[in-house]
């Protein structure tokens, strides 16, 4: 049984709080892991560094990935996830403020499963989070772990 359902990669604490709040509101995930930069996200998923003792079998069901991140940006994280056998099929949803077309195109090119733009309106944001959780955590059947 997976312990972690969602890995939220987000450097902005406000956004972290709001996202957690939105997910909580709909009782969708009570075990959300947060990584505040790209490096940390990779270490968590590949059980390295501070997460060396983590169970490699415990993969999250979904990664919510911001693009603008310190150290390693979101697109680079995505590229490395898709290059690794263990995370090749891991569902990754890009969740970002950016509406720039280049980000959108590049995300899909690198193998993102979905691209969601964070709305300013919190009501809309909560709604988006609900949809995301419902779809990716309940409806979607992910590929079995290799």
């Amino acid at each position, binding site marked *: 049984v997976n312990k972690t359902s969602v890995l939220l990669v987000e450097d*902005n604490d*406000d*956004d972290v*709080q*709001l996202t957690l*709040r939105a997910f909580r509101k709909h009782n969708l995930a009570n075990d959300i892991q947060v990584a505040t930069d790209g490096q940390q996200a990779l270490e968590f998923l590949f059980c390295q560094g501070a997460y060396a003792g983590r169970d490699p079998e415990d993969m999250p069901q979904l990664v919510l990935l911001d*693009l*603008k991140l310190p150290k390693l940006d979101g697109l680079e994280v995505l590229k490395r996830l898709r290059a690794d056998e263990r995370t090749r099929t891991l569902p990754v949803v890009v969740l*970002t*403020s*950016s*509406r*720039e*077309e280049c980000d959108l195109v590049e995300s899909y090119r690198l193998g993102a499963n979905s691209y969601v733009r*964070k*709305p*300013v*309106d*919190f*009501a809309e*944001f909560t709604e988006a989070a609900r949809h995301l959780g419902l779809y990716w955590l309940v409806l979607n059947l992910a590929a079995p772990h290799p």
Partner: protein
Amino acid sequence: MPRTATLFATVAATACIGVAAVVVAGWAFGMPALTTLGRAWTPMVVNTALGVWCGATAILLLARRATGKRPWRIIRALGAVMAVMGGLVLADFGSVWLTGTPLYPPAPAWRMAPNTAVANVCIGLALALSGRSVRVTRVAEALIAAALIVAAVMLVAFLMGATAQSDLMGRVNMSPITGLCLATIAATLLVVMPDAVLGSIVWGDGPGSRIARPLLLTAVLAPTFLGWFSVAAERRGWMTLEYGIALTVLGTAIVATGAVIRGAMRVNSYDARRAEAEDSLRALAAGLETQVARRTAELTATNRELESFSYSVSHDLRTPLRALDGFSQALLEDYSDRLDDTGRDYLGRIRRGTQRMGELIDALLDLSRVSRAQLQRAQVDLSALATDVAATLREREPGRHVLVQVTPGLSAEGDPRLLRALLENLMANAWKFTSRRPDALIEFTAIREDGRPDPVYVLRDNGAGFDMAHAAKLFGAFQRLHTEREFQGTGVGLATAQRIVHRHGGEIWAEGIAGQGAAFFFTLAEDLQT
């Protein structure tokens, strides 16, 4: 024709006409002295005087009338008269030469010399051929040159002291007066005839003309003077004719050599100056190229900065807004019981403010995207696009009753996405401002306007309209003619529309009446500058 040319031609022709008139008067009133201008020379005869009058009159008509107003028929008729008179005389000579009997025995007053007749025929034919193509003008020029040679030979021989009364084929020779007149007429014609080579060189502004003018003068005057001097010197016993000829030959050679050297030097100096100018021009062009390269680099850098600025706006400006809105909402949800109505109202205002700010940022990004986007070219069905946009608007507000009329078959070349954004902005505008009318009407069509090669597209509505006094403000970013309470909007839509039209090389303008409606006009250039 330059003024000096006109003046020269007028003086020369008038003098010739005067001489002809004096001669005719002399014959008419039996005063022989007038026919020789009082000298012991061969007299000028009546038909010669008539020929001189014809040629001189033709010169006056050519020189004094503006291009395009020259009476070619009269000029050609004058030429024909000259040619026929000369021809008759030549025919008479031919008859004497072949059969021994003249066609008609001319009276002394009409006894034209054979060389005069040849010159008359040549000039007459040339005038009869004048005013046609450049190629025909070349033939006419050659004829006049022949006449000039005939007359000038007589004139120069006379200057050298040839006997005035020498017979030629049983007839008198050309009178020196006739020689002067015909030479003058021929020379003048050569320089005043339109498209004439000699005229274009003599009166031209080119470096060739500047070199040729003094050379031409020298080429004519120097040998003439030397010949005359040699003959005169021989008469007075200063030197033998052999020496005179030697002097003439050598002098002419020296003058010709000098003229050639002078001409060559001037050509060299012109060429040096031209080469210098070419060099500086090349340097200028090279400088321009580097400048263009530098400007392009600067522009590319600016564009890149703008790109990263927009990216930053898109990403970073929205994050704090989301926090503002999100935590206000959290307060409302979690601490509602500890807030009174005023507190809740304030939080509501904070939320509305942040949401509006978010909309403004998005609108601004749209505007900057229009400027940055690479322009694609395609044939775009504007009618289909307008119908589609109208359907989208209807979907968004199904309760509204709006009649949308789109003229079918409107098509233009441009960027499909930008043109869609253009119609979206304009039609959303019309949709918004007709919201208070139960009989809302939006019309999209095209008209033709005088002086414009491209069609003018029109989007007309019967909505709130605007006062034409504020028309200049309409297309500025964040300029609004209505309060947010009256009609919602960011104030960027029309600025975006204008930028799209400008990127397509077109123009956009608006007409409106407050309370009655507005019309937006725009054009799209045919050849797109990408």
